[in-house]
Structures are given as structure tokens and as C-alpha cells.
């Protein structure tokens, strides 16, 4: 069934977009990530301009993460205090990121910067997660208890002042690294046009030692708020949010996310990390290959204004 999109100005197959939304929604519900780094390239591949894709995906991620957040809230798997502290940093980071984005665009190499940061970030994060997951599985196989939450392995982060007790997560942690993580995620999210969940989850697990039980739900809250913020920002500044496209993506996305969240609860933590690591690594490698091989067409056209 073909449908003409009012902002993107092209007809698309509704079922194809629904299926894409559902697939990405499943992944996002399972791993507690927004899935923007998967959805945006998919939409561009279908023929939607990058600007409209990025803007519309933001609202799609908001819907997916809200549905996911409700799911985790019922299971008491969200730490509200931790989410609030992260968010305070996230807002600052987003503002900084938007400013940097504008500066980079003025320099004229924004596309390259985005592609390079995708490659570096996705490969690094994906590779690390994959390796960690693999080691955890090996340890479990050999019957050695996980060393992840061994006391005394706290490091310098746990020596910082301004400590708060995050009750739901059962951790006692300084707010400084939490706010810093929020700033970094907000910044990366704004510059790369993604929610940043796939970076936030590993940072929370490995750096802040937040237990896996509250990591996903809490990161979803952060994703939800930043994506609602991003939707507003895109709608006000560039008028490029396609509500019809977003609605189709949402319907597919939230459905997928529900099943994804259930599937995620059934899979063991280290397996989940291994799978997510593989997925992120695969996307990173795909971007690397794209940069490395000779493109089919050396030329590209982009509309820059309506000639007025």
C-alpha cells in the first residue's frame, strides 16, 4: 500500500515502513536502546532525505522508549533519582552538541564527521561489549563467579565527593561522574543525531557499575526525554518532522518494543551484551566499509534552498 508523505514529499510503502519500525522497535525494547543508529540509515536507504529521517526518527524513538519505560516502571526497573541526575547533565550536553553541530556544518565536513564518529564510536563500543560479553560467558562456563561487582574494584570514580545513595539501583555513588556521563551522552546524541542509548548502557554498566536490572529502564527514561526535546527542536527550527512517517514508525516500533522487552528479560545479561555488541559492531563496520570502498557514484546532489 503506497502512501504519500506530506513532509518527506515521496510515496512510501506503508507495510515496509511498519516492518522497519517493528524490527528496530524489537531491538530497542530488548537492549533498552533508542535504535536511532539503525532506523536513520534504514530510512535514508528507502529514499527519505537524511534531514527528514533524523527529525522524524526522534519522535519514533520517543514513542518506543515511552512504551519501554512504562514496561520497566511496572517492574520497578527504573531508578528515578539516577535518571534525574543523568538528565540534568543530558540537557547541558544537548545544548553544547547543538552548538557544535552548527559550527561543524559551517565548516562543510559535517557528513564526514558524522560518518567517522559512527565508525569510531560504534566499532569501539561494539567491540568492547562483544569482548566483555564473551569473557563473561567464558567465566560462567568455567564456573567462576562474575567479577563484575567485586567489592574493592571500585577505582577512582568511587572516591569522588558528593555521594548519593541511589536506592533503587542499590549503589552509593558521587553525582559528578553521573552528570558527566549525562553531558557526554547529550552531546554525542545531538551531534550524531541519535539517542545515545547504546553508549549509555555500557557506560552505566562498566563505569558506574549500575546493576543490569535498572540500567535499561533508566537509560530509556533519558532517551525518552532527550528525544521529546529533539522532536520539539527539529519541529521548531527546520520544520522537517514528518508526522505521518513518524506515526507509521511508532505503531511498528512500540509493537516491536513490547516483544523486544519481553525477549530481553528472558536472555541472560552477558548474552544480551554479547548480542548488542555484535549488532553495534556490525553497524560500525558497515559504515567503515562505506568509507573505504569506492562508491558506485562519486557524485551526489543535495538541495540547499528553494532558490528564493
Amino acid at each position: 500500500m503506497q502512501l504519500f508523505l506530506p513532509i518527506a514529499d515521496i510515496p512510501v510503502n506503508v507495510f515496509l515502513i511498519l516492518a522497519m519500525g517493528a524490527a528496530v522497535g524489537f531491538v530497542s525494547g530488548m537492549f533498552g536502546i533508542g535504535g536511532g543508529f539503525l532506523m536513520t540509515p534504514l530510512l535514508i536507504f528507502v529514499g527519505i532525505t537524511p534531514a527528514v529521517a533524523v527529525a522524524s526518527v526522534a519522535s519514533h524513538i520517543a514513542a518506543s522508549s515511552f512504551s519501554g519505560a512504562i514496561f520497566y516502571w511496572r517492574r520497578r526497573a527504573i531508578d528515578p533519582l539516577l535518571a534525574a541526575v543523568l538528565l540534568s547533565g543530558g540537557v547541558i550536553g544537548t545544548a553544547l552538541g547543538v552548538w557544535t553541530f552548527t559550527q561543524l556544518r559551517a565548516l562543510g565536513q559535517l557528513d564526514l564527521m558524522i560518518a567517522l564518529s559512527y565508525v569510531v564510536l560504534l566499532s569501539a563500543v561494539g567491540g568492547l561489549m562483544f569482548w566483555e560479553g564473551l569473557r563473561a560467558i567464558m567465566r560462567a562456563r568455567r564456573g567462576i563467579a562474575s567479577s563484575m561487582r567485586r567489592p574493592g574494584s571500585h577505582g577512582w570514580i568511587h572516591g569522588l565527593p558528593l555521594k548519593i545513595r541511589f536506592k533503587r539501583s542499590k549503589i552509593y555513588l558521587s553525582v559528578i561522574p553521573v552528570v558527566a556521563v549525562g553531558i557526554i551522552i547529550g552531546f554525542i546524541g545531538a551531534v550524531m543525531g541519535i539517542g545515545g542509548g547504546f553508549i549509555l548502557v555500557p557506560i552505566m554498566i562498566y563505569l558506574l557499575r549500575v546493576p543490569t536490572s535498572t540500567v535499561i529502564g533508566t537509560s530509556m527514561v533519558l532517551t525518552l526525554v532527550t528525544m521529546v526535546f529533539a522532536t520539539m527542536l527539529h519541529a521548531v527550527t527546520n520544520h522537517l518532522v514528518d508526522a505521518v512517517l513518524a506515526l507509521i514508525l511508532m505503531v511498528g516500533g512500540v509493537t516491536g518494543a513490547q516483544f523486544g522487552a519481553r525477549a530481553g528479560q528472558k536472555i541472560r545479561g552477558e548474552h544480551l551484551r554479547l548480542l548488542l555488541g555484535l549488532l553495534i559492531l556490525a553497524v560500525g563496520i558497515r559504515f567503515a566499509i562505506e568509507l573505504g570502498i569506492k562508491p558506485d557514484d562519486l557524485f551526489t546532489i543535495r538541495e540547499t534552498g528553494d532558490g528564493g
Partner: protein
Amino acid sequence: MIARHCLAVIFAALTLCAAFAIRPADAERLIVSVSNHRVTVTPNYSGEELVLFGSVEKDASTPAGGADYDLVVTVSGPLADMVTRRKERKFGIWINTDYRQFLKVPTYLALFSNRPFDAIASPEVQRRQQLGLNNVLLTQRVGPDYADVVPNDAFRSAFVRLRSERGLYREATSAVTFLTPTLFRTEIPLPAEVPIGRYDVEIKLFSDGALVAQTVTSFEIVKVGFEQFVATSARQNGFVYGLATAFMALMTGWMASIVFRKD
């Protein structure tokens, strides 16, 4: 300065006289009509085809016997600025290095004729009347200057090729058919991803390699109903539109969690 101006005026007058000498003014008149002057884009729009009809009207001063006519139809869509970029291998990766800016070029451009342009007119006339994609003026910004370049310029040909691949630029030298020696028709195919706006249709009649008559008509492509409502509210009430979209997102997420709630 003044002398030079006078010279220019005299030269222009002479050229005009020469033109009139070859053919009397308004010997032929073109009457044309497009099958639809207002193409509406609805949710199930996926491309359309318009038909242009026309006839050549002769008056008493037209030489008897009736020469063979040639017809060229140029359809140009709304104008836009575009950038063509070229990738090059640097440090082992392919990055955009060089680019050309095209200023106020048509987003849709179609040229139709009844036979190859080379058969219709001399290269000089083809260039002056912009017959064919190779001769259409596509203004580029070259440093501080504005100019079109030679047709085989890498950026220009890449631009035309990429637009043609998307069905937005096209050239068909057998698309115009003469039903009788004076009655003609041609189809104007509009692709699915058609730019919204006003389209100018320029019809030029040639005889013996010279332009004898021309006329223009136009049609517009508009969004209607829901599409238009969404498009205009996104543009004019960005904040409200954003709020509505964000609210829609939250509602969808909430609905899903109710629908799929098992416990």
C-alpha cells in the same frame, strides 16, 4: 560609452530586421492546453501523466504550401539551489572534496520534441533556444562568477545524469507527435517524488531550422486536504506541530503498553 550603446542598438535593430526578412512576424500562432492545470497530490499519489495538446494556427500571411513544422516542449518545475559534490580517495577513505553550486535550477526539467534536436535546428540555434539537456542553461557559481559551463563538464553532466536517474530530468526527441500537419500532442510524465509547485511549459515551433512561434502555459502541483494541512502546520506552527507530534508519540507508546499488558 554612448557611442558604444548606439552601436549596440543599431546592431540589435539590424538583427531584428534580418529575422523579419526571413519570416514575417506572427505568421503562425500556437494554441495549446494541458490536460490538467492543477495536479493534486493525495495520500495515494504515485506519479501521474499529463497530456499537452496544441495546434498551429496559420493566418493569411503564412506562405502557402505549408512547411514542415518541428516542435520543442520544455517543462520546468520550481527552481532551487543545489550542490553537486564529488568524492575522492583521501587517506584511504572516500570523502567529499570538490563541489559545484547550481543556482536557481529547475527541480524538474523535461524536453520533448518530434525529432532529434540536430535535425530541427543548427547547433547555434539549439544553443540559443536552449534545446536539449546539453543546451539548457544551468547556472553555476564558479568562484565569484555566475556562469554555465560546457555541456561535458564533469559536475554538470553528473548533475544531469543523477537528476535523470530519478526521472526528474528527461529528454525525449520522439515524444511529440503530429496528429495532422498542424495538430500535435505530447505526454508529460510526472514521477512519484515530484517537486511541489508551479511548472512552466514552453512550446517552441520551428520551421526550416528557425523559430517561428512560441507560447507558454503552466500547471501547478499542489498538496490538498490532509497532506496540505500537515505541510502548512509544520511550516507555520512549528511549536504546536512539534508538541502535537511529541504528544502523539507519548500516546502511541502508552496505548501500546496497555494493549500489550499481560499482567
